[in-house]
């Protein structure tokens, strides 16, 4: 049985760990609220953009090809992984890293052998994980997560589009954690480019079709809008990932705090046992001493 002092020291250290984890939980919770707000303010924009694009597509003939809708043979692949700069958030980072490795080994083994798969990481933990396993990372955008804003992601998103249009890549996909709720993240693999034309949904015959004036022309507007919607898709992935990160950290820290509580209970029990044993011992000694004196 450990001595009284040892147990006391352990209790102290578990207590201070518990304080840290519960503080981190609170911080994650407040950051989560902020991240959720960011998603909520972005949603109307995304919704309206799709609406306008559908309005135009309805008036547009099939022939309008954009450099971003071209389907090519999958030869050069770009995988963008979005995770986090910090740890202590459960399996959040590792899930993304594993998905990237899985995609490389299962979906694109031939391309990888030929050296045609590039990885771009957003999040230091993800970069570290892949580096440790000898995957070459073409570029890292770790700073992006610190100060996430639409303005900051624009040049990067444009770079992806330029690379695709210049046929540097035939397929660009993003792997990230989609935010469902604070406790649940869904790992998503999304194709960023080429843009897949949505199946023409059956237009509901609600009201007459509005006869729009297009300025300058449908085609020019759609070529303006496709890059916009791509940027939005990329931005949304980042926002989703940030919210998921804080959600994951909150859950992980909650569990850690609970565990510390359990541990404390056990330690307190053994501390009390040790204390009782010491007292009993002392009494025995006194009684023994008194007996000896009497004798």
């Amino acid at each position: 049985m450990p001595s009284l002092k040892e147990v006391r020291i352990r209790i102290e250290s578990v207590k201070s760990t518990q304080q840290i984890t519960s503080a981190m939980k609170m911080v994650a919770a407040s950051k989560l609220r902020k991240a959720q707000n960011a998603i909520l303010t972005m949603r109307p924009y995304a919704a309206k953009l799709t609406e306008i694009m559908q309005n135009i597509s309805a008036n547009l003939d099939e022939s309008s090809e954009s450099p971003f809708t071209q389907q090519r043979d999958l030869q050069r692949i770009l995988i963008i992984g979005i995770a986090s700069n910090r740890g202590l958030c459960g399996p959040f980072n590792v899930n993304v890293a594993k998905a990237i490795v899985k995609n490389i080994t299962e979906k694109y083994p031939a391309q990888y052998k030929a050296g045609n798969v590039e990885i771009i990481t957003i999040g230091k933990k993800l970069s570290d994980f892949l580096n440790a396993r000898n995957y070459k990372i073409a570029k890292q955008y770790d700073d992006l997560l610190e100060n996430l804003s639409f303005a900051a992601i624009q040049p990067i998103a444009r770079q992806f589009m330029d690379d695709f249009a210049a046929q540097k890549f035939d397929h660009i996909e993003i792997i990230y954690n989609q935010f469902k709720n604070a406790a649940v993240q869904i790992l998503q693999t999304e194709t960023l480019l080429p843009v897949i034309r949505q199946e023409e949904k059956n237009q509901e015959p609600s009201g007459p079709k509005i006869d729009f004036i297009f300025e300058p022309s449908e085609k020019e507007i759609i070529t303006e809008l496709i890059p916009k919607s791509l940027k939005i898709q990329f931005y949304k992935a980042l926002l989703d990932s940030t919210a998921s990160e804080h959600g994951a950290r909150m859950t992980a820290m909650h569990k850690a705090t609970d565990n510390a509580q359990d541990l404390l209970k056990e330690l307190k029990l053994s501390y009390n046992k040790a204390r009782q044993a010491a007292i009993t011992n002392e009494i025995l000694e006194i009684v023994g001493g008194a007996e000896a004196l009497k004798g």
Partner: protein
Amino acid sequence: MKVQIITPDKTLFDGEARLVQLPGLDGSFELLENHAPIIAALKKGSVKIKTGNDKEQFFEIESGVVEVIKNKVLILAE
């Protein structure tokens, strides 16, 4: 007419206006009450909004698109 200017980060303007001046791809143009439905692409420039009491407000945009349906003006800006 009701005017909304939305960016991915926040809503810049939401309210009634009498006149909206926009930097169209082919040149600046204005929208007044009861304009016909239009979808137009916008370039870098500033959006001018005149509210009921002739107060003018300006918003700088990088690019955007505007949609007008039944006196509802929706500007998606960057």
